[in-house]
């Protein structure tokens, strides 16, 4: 054991900072910063930033080199993402870069690799993920959307829900049932579908955070070339599980949590002359101290995973622990943020206006006000999506303790 995290990466960090300085206009960073911390409506910004990164060879550095990856050590990925988050750079379209892309290079045919990977790598195609269904949420394997083989095509019929960004996606990757078995995890396949295929209807669902990136996707006898099947028919469940094991630290949202701690401190400093909630507020400072200490620890939980520390417990349990603490912290930090801005948190903002930067600025309604409340409201989803907090508890009990 020898604990020295960053000592050899200072040059690389400076290179990342220089890249961001040269490529990310300050106005764009401010626009993203003042919106909420999720940027699903910013798909244009996501793809634009991916294309900038691509020119540097950094758009998908974690992919294998032959597909455009950068052959980095784990800590370089950490540094790149940390610096981009701190600089309020757009987030990537993770459904493409982190899910569809790896799925295709791991299990897809050469045809699919050539068709799909360049668009993701170069920031040209937006992706969405069609997993959940009205009757298959936590119990995903109960999904019923069916794909029937007819010659060189599949005919897909069914409905998906919570399909983030489907309304503006070029492609979707869907879990579909291709055969019936006693064990419901069998007979599930991975199918890539262009979202402009006839028979697809997308409905945006209005959300409590004044957004509508979550969608219902109706598939009514959608014809899909059989060549768009990823890997073998019936292996979808196995592939999906392998995919979730690829990126085991993302669910900590460590960079978002770190950035929001910085923002919280900025808010406290900004609000200082304004009223009773100030930097001298003891109760407030205690709450900040707890979440900041927890973020410090969470960062080391991520570093431990990246450093391949040998553990007494299986990786799945440790990844679940990251998800639990990472999602709890998002909620705790954003909640303190709206407490700091007091009644200013109550004002409703039109999100498109905020994203476009069209709102009045003065010392009272300052730059950090508009996105906070919807950020805090949106953070309630962090303990719901990607395996709810309770599902994570079940996973830990089962995999760590065999219960």
């Amino acid at each position, binding site marked *: 054991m020898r604990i*020295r995290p960053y000592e050899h990466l200072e040059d690389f960090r400076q290179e990342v900072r220089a890249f961001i300085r040269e490529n990310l206009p300050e106005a764009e960073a401010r626009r993203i910063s003042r919106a909420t911390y999720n940027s699903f409506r910013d798909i244009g910004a996501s793809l634009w930033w991916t294309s900038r990164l691509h020119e540097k060879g950094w758009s998908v550095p974690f992919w294998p080199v032959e597909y455009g990856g950068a052959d980095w050590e784990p800590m370089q990925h950490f540094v790149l993402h940390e610096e981009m988050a701190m600089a309020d750079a757009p987030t990537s379209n993770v459904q493409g870069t982190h899910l569809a892309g790896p799925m295709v290079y791991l299990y897809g045919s050469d045809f699919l690799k050539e068709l799909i990977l360049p668009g993701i790598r170069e920031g040209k195609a937006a992706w969405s993920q069609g997993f959940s269904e009205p009757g298959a949420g936590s119990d995903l394997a109960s999904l019923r959307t069916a794909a029937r083989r007819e010659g060189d095509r599949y005919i897909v019929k069914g409905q998906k829900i919570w399909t983030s960004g489907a309304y503006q996606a070029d492609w979707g990757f869907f879990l579909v049932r291709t055969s019936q078995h006693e064990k419901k995890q069998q007979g599930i396949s991975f199918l890539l579908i262009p979202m402009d295929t006839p028979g697809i209807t997308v409905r945006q669902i209005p959300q409590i955070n004044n957004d509508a990136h979550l969608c219902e996707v109706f598939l009514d006898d959608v014809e899909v070339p059989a060549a768009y099947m990823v890997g073998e028919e019936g292996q979808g469940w196995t592939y999906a599980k392998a995919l979730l094991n690829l990126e085991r630290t993302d669910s900590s949202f460590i960079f978002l949590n770190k950035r929001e701690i910085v923002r919280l401190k900025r808010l*406290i400093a900004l609000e200082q002359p304004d009223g009773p909630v100030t930097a001298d507020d003891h109760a407030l*400072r205690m709450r900040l*101290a707890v979440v900041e200490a927890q973020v410090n620890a969470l960062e*080391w939980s991520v570093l431990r995973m990246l450093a391949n520390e040998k553990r007494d417990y299986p990786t799945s349990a440790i990844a679940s622990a990251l998800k639990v603490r990472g999602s709890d912290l998002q909620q705790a930090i954003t909640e303190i943020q709206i407490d700091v801005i007091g009644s200013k948190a109550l004002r409703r903002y039109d999100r498109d206006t905020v994203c476009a930067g069209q709102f009045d600025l003065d010392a009272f309604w300052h730059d950090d006000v508009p996105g906070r409340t919807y950020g805090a409201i949106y953070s309630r989803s962090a303990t719901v999506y990607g395996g709810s907090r309770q599902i994570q508890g079940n996973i830990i009990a089962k995999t760590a*303790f065999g219960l």
Partner: protein
Amino acid sequence: MELNLSDEQTMLRDSVQRFVAEQYGLDGLRRVEAEATGWASDNWRQLAELGWLALPFAEEAGGLGGSLEDLAVLMIEFGSGHVLEPYVSTAVMCGQLLADAGGQGDLVGQVIAGEKVLAFAHTETARPADPLAVTATVATAEGDGYVLSGAKRVVVDAAGADHLVVSALVGETAGLFLVDTASAGLSMTTYGLIDGSAAADIVFDRLKLPADRLIATGELARTLTRDAIERGTLAWLAQAVGSLERCVSLTSAYVAERQQYGRPIGKFQALQHILANMFVESQEARSALYHALAHWHATPEERSRALSSAKIVICSAGRYISRNGIQLHGGYGMTEEFLIGHHFRRQIVIEKLFGDLDHHLAAFAAGAV
């Protein structure tokens, strides 16, 4: 960076685990608890023979020159095994303080050989606003030496100590003195602590000290004091991590075995989710320790902040885990016949020493914005 144990660290861990298996467990713990000193002399000899007392000292001082990570490995296993011997007081706090100050080479050699036990006689109040502060103990220059008067409270590991490192005011400034516990003018009231270790209240009544018993004054004394307290805090936090990780494994084993309603109680989701939360807390606790270790060689301010940050996370985790460990053990958690209750009390002791959780919360908060 390497987070896995080196071959040497693996050997160290394995040898502590053997020591714990032979000397501790419930029976060994009861034997040590029965000692008025709060530790067993044969155990202490083993600590010396196994080289652990030499571990943190530089090779020039006769030590093994172990790294802070080596010390953490040792301390995590001590915590896991509920080892009560006064290692932190003797070697980590006082021994290294003397080695850092210089001029006490013989005594440092005796500490490494296991011949002397030391305690840090510093705290004067139950809940000091500033853990570094000294007000109730005063040393006055008189003749060729000093006269020491005042009182210290809840001095851990003092009951069986040969010497004390005593903090005192020298005029307006800080001072550190080396005091033989058999000195005339020193009276000690010893008592056991809830975890089986022992402490003492100590009164100095015009205790005469030759000049060579002054270890340091002024800024150096303050630095040595702070370093000793921070080293001790780090070592105890590593013990807390070992202890709370043990609580998780003790509790998971218990709920898998204990049958009610015709099945192991660990099959009930309400209990599973408590255990899952304990698991999350334990992961974060060890991560917090690594955070503190990573900042040890940063600036003094950064080091202190990282230590406070770690204490907040580790002691909060220790509370959650040990208390829910009792809950999941049911009535058996309330007995002395299960280890979980012993670790629970150990967690309380560690949390209160040299700056409690509230102190570190306040200190961390003060430097935040």
